[in-house]
């Protein structure tokens, strides 16, 4: 157990691990939904510390990874226009569209700017009334409320040159889609803690009941993950399937009602395509008709875009937990963080990047040896 000394509280980590080891009697497959959790797991080698019977399957919870190629291409096209200042979070700069990324658009002369908060983009719009300022609104239930508030403020303060290119996604329909897939192996979920800080846990009991899966709300620090796994395994061994909150210090059952109310006002639920996975019904948000003035898709006509995914990228299977990153032929050979084929290798929360970063040596070597081309 060479990793355990790196835990914040190694003693507690050892106790949790002992508890998990003595509870498990059979194989179980748990999915961690959030990409931040995937990174913690790989970074700290948590998967290697757990009993062999406990398998952690990485879920689709990386907003950068699941943003559909078509939306990235729309962003690239809008960002290339001379009248536009295109604002984005830094994570999106190197996500490949068809043929290029935002980083390249900027080097070709596009006015692409990185902001920390959507409110920064609104401020830029205010300072540049003669330009069109577009903010790239991606992300799960944690990022959607800030973006909703920003559109609301643009309306309230009368800032007409601000618009949002929206591609928000929701976790519960993704869980439903994963559980409904015919080859699904997932038996329990570690739900994403910060999503629940906003949305509460109200959407989960129905899913837990319908699919008979334990859902344990889990944080993303190493000890949080161990505690989430411990509680999940306990339920599985007992044949229970309830919703449990292992991240109570940051998640109230009701979530953040003010944020939920704003989401309901500014957005409406829509079907959304997930990159590599396809359309999941009701799994996204778009701006509701009353905010159409601030919808970049209406303001700039960017329809009819032809997208092209690299054929060898298997990120869709990675995102659904059907394939581990290093099982992809391109992993570590043609696909690396410097030359990413898929968004899961670009994003700091992507599963492929996590494997590459923290197990660079053993896995890339293994991948090279296994690969006939090298």
């Amino acid at each position, binding site marked *: 157990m060479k990793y355990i000394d790196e835990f914040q509280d190694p003693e507690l980590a050892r106790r949790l691990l002992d508890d998990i080891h003595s509870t498990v009697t059979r194989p179980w497959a748990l999915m961690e939904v959030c990409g931040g959790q995937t990174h913690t797991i790989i970074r700290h080698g948590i998967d290697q510390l757990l009993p062999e019977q406990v398998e952690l399957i990485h879920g689709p919870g990386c907003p950068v990874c699941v943003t559909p190629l078509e939306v990235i291409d729309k962003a690239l096209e809008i960002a290339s226009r001379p009248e536009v200042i295109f604002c984005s979070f830094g994570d999106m700069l190197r996500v490949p569209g068809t043929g290029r990324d935002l980083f390249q658009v900027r080097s070709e002369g596009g006015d692409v700017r990185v902001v920390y908060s959507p409110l920064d983009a609104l401020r830029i719009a205010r300072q540049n009334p003669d330009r069109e300022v577009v903010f790239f609104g991606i992300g799960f239930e944690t990022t959607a409320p800030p973006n909703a508030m920003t559109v609301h403020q643009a309306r309230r303060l009368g800032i007409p040159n601000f618009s949002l290119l929206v591609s928000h996604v929701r976790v519960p329909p993704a869980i439903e889609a994963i559980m409904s897939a015919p080859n699904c192996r997932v038996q329990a979920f570690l739900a994403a803690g*910060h999503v629940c800080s906003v949305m509460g846990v109200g959407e989960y009991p129905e899913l837990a009941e319908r699919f008979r899966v334990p859902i344990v709300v889990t944080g993303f620090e190493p000890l949080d993950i161990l505690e989430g796994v411990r509680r999940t395994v306990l339920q599985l061994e007992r044949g229970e399937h309830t919703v449990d909150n292992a991240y109570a*210090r940051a998640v*109230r059952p009701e979530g953040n009602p003010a944020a939920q109310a704003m989401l309901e006002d500014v957005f409406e639920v829509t079907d959304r395509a997930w990159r590599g996975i396809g359309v999941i019904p009701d799994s996204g948000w778009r701006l509701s008709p009353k905010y159409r003035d601030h919808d970049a898709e209406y303001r700039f006509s960017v329809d009819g875009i032809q997208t092209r995914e690299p054929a060898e990228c298997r990120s869709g299977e990675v995102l659904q937990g059907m394939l581990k990153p290093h099982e992809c032929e391109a992993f570590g050979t043609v696909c690396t963080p410097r030359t990413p084929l898929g968004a899961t290798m670009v994003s700091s929360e992507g599963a492929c990047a996590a494997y590459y970063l923290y197990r660079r040596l053993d896995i890339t070597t293994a991948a090279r040896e296994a690969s006939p081309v090298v």
Partner: protein
Amino acid sequence: MCLAVPGRVLDIEERDGTRMATVDFGGVVKEVCLEYLPDLQVGEYAIVHVGFALQRLDEESAKQTLELFAQLGMLQEEFGDPWEQAAEAGGATPPVGDAVIEEVRK
């Protein structure tokens, strides 16, 4: 981007009809919108995501998380220069003269 970071409220003021705070994230200071946690007070801790306070956090957990993030270099990832990070990952030179982050910080 999806990660939320705990921070401590240094001061609060009303700006353009919006409740805003200055928040300290282990040494990095940022503007944060309090509209979703309107009763947060100076000295309290909250989980902040892309410039919005989303949920209160007790002081001890907040400090532990911040310490862990600092150790793991995650504060740098969250608040460092994104152009440099993207360029480094891609093996390219970052575009020069990106004053935007500075501009909006003011």
